[in-house]
């Protein structure tokens, strides 16, 4: 009943958008996202997908067009990466504030300068505070499944926030893997149709969207987003449970995934494709009788901090891997966020793979050994050349 295709991560995202029967796509091509929007253009042009495809001259316009279309009540999708996401920066906040449930795929890539098209997670993490929900995928199947789930999460009446599904540039965007494609009727049955109650264009019932919010109102609108993020935590778990029930695939509890955490005193906290390598290292060490663990963060915003604290309660040595760096603080962004809520725990921050530098099986092994002897609060730029 399902179809299995050997496809790239960007194709998986495009297939998911097609399965979700999006109404509008507005996008600008940027490496390594390009093949996603090319695929969608192909779907629209050959009649496989009945959607409006808006070709724009920049990512700022892409996001602006998406906000307009979503505000008109259309199911909307876009994709971007790195400098493109940075160019959207201004309008990302508008999308969240206007509470339009846009779904966007972001191919994680380094930010200039120097010019670098390879993978790290600096781009999306720099947009941490924009009010977008952020999900990070480990493999291409998770990309497809997360984009499908993203529509259901974003359009939930208790959430109504845009969702960004992140996948590591090249590592996933350009690597082919077998991906199971569910039947569209089952996907649509799962997501449901988007019937916006709060925002849609109706000439008979004119409304104002994107209005000025003077000091009397602004704080309340931001607080409302915070409350929606709180709601999203539960909605993400529920949507994930329902998805798992229907399609027989799951990723932890939807927010975090614990891999061999019960017995492990040494644990790595990480996001995205690197979790695959970490799981391999854990399996190899298990055979040697050593128990080490992984806490994969699937959802970075909202950050399920209570769950993370609980999952790490038995851990003695915690290594937080960051493919990002908050310059001037010498800490990765994930580290800062996770550790701010952990008390009396030894944590070490490893800055890895910036600008696409390989993170190997051996690097992960080294981190597991290093964190046991390293001092608390240290930052280590792994493999930095003299």
């Amino acid at each position: 009943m399902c179809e299995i295709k050997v496809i790239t991560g960007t194709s998986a995202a495009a297939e998911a958008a097609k399965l979700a029967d999006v109404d509008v796509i507005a996008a600008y091509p940027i490496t390594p996202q390009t093949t996603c929007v090319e695929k969608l253009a192909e779907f629209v042009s050959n009649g496989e997908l009945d959607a409006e495809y808006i070709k724009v001259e920049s990512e700022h316009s892409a996001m602006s067009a998406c906000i307009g279309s979503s505000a008109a009540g259309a199911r909307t999708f876009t994709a971007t990466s790195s400098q493109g996401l940075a160019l959207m920066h201004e309008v990302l906040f508008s999308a969240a504030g206007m509470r339009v449930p846009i779904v966007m795929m972001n191919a994680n890539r380094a930010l200039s300068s120097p010019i670098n098209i390879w993978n790290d997670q600096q781009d999306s993490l720099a947009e941490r505070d924009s009010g977008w929900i952020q999900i990070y995928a480990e493999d291409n199947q998770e990309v497809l499944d997360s984009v499908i789930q993203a529509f259901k999460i974003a359009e939930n009446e208790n959430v109504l926030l845009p969702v960004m599904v992140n996948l590591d540039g090249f590592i996933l965007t350009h690597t082919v893997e077998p991906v199971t494609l569910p039947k569209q009727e089952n996907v649509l049955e799962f997501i449901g149709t988007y019937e916006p109650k709060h925002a849609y264009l109706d000439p008979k019932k004119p409304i104002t969207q994107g209005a000025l919010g003077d000091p009397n109102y602004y704080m309340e609108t931001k607080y409302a987003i915070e409350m929606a993020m709180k709601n999203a935590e539960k909605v993400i778990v529920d949507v994930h449970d329902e998805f798992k029930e229907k399609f027989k695939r799951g990723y932890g509890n939807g927010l975090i995934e614990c891999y061999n955490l019960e017995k492990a005193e040494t644990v790595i906290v990480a996001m995205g494709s690197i979790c695959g390598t970490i799981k391999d290292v854990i399996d190899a060490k298990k055979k040697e009788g050593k128990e080490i663990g992984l806490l994969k963060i699937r959802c970075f915003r909202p950050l399920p901090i209570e769950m993370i604290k609980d999952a790490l309660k038995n851990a003695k040595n915690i290594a937080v891997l960051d493919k990002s760096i908050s310059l001037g603080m010498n800490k990765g962004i994930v580290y800062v966020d996770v550790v701010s809520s952990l008390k009396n725990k030894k944590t070490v921050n490893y800055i890895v793979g910036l600008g696409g530098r390989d993170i190997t099986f051996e690097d992960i092994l080294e981190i597991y050994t290093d964190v046991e002897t390293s001092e608390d609060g240290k930052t280590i730029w792994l493999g930095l050349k003299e």
Partner: protein
Amino acid sequence: MVNTGTIIYEPGSSANNKTGSWRVFKPILDKEKCVMCENCYIFCPEGCIQEKNGKFEIDYDYCKGCLICERECPVKAIKAEREEK
């Protein structure tokens, strides 16, 4: 207090949104000095200076305190005071 997405469903509802709270300076119009030249009426960007019973009056619910009226008045009939809250 605020609709989801700050959407305004009711046309014309901006009349309920009193914008006078932004004000730091308050223009005070001296009706005795005023020569009814209409300068302040024309220049006020908020349209909050209106003629009532043959005299001009400032509607403080909407006056944002920009003091353009004070600058434009040829006979200095409008004086600025610091807003007391």
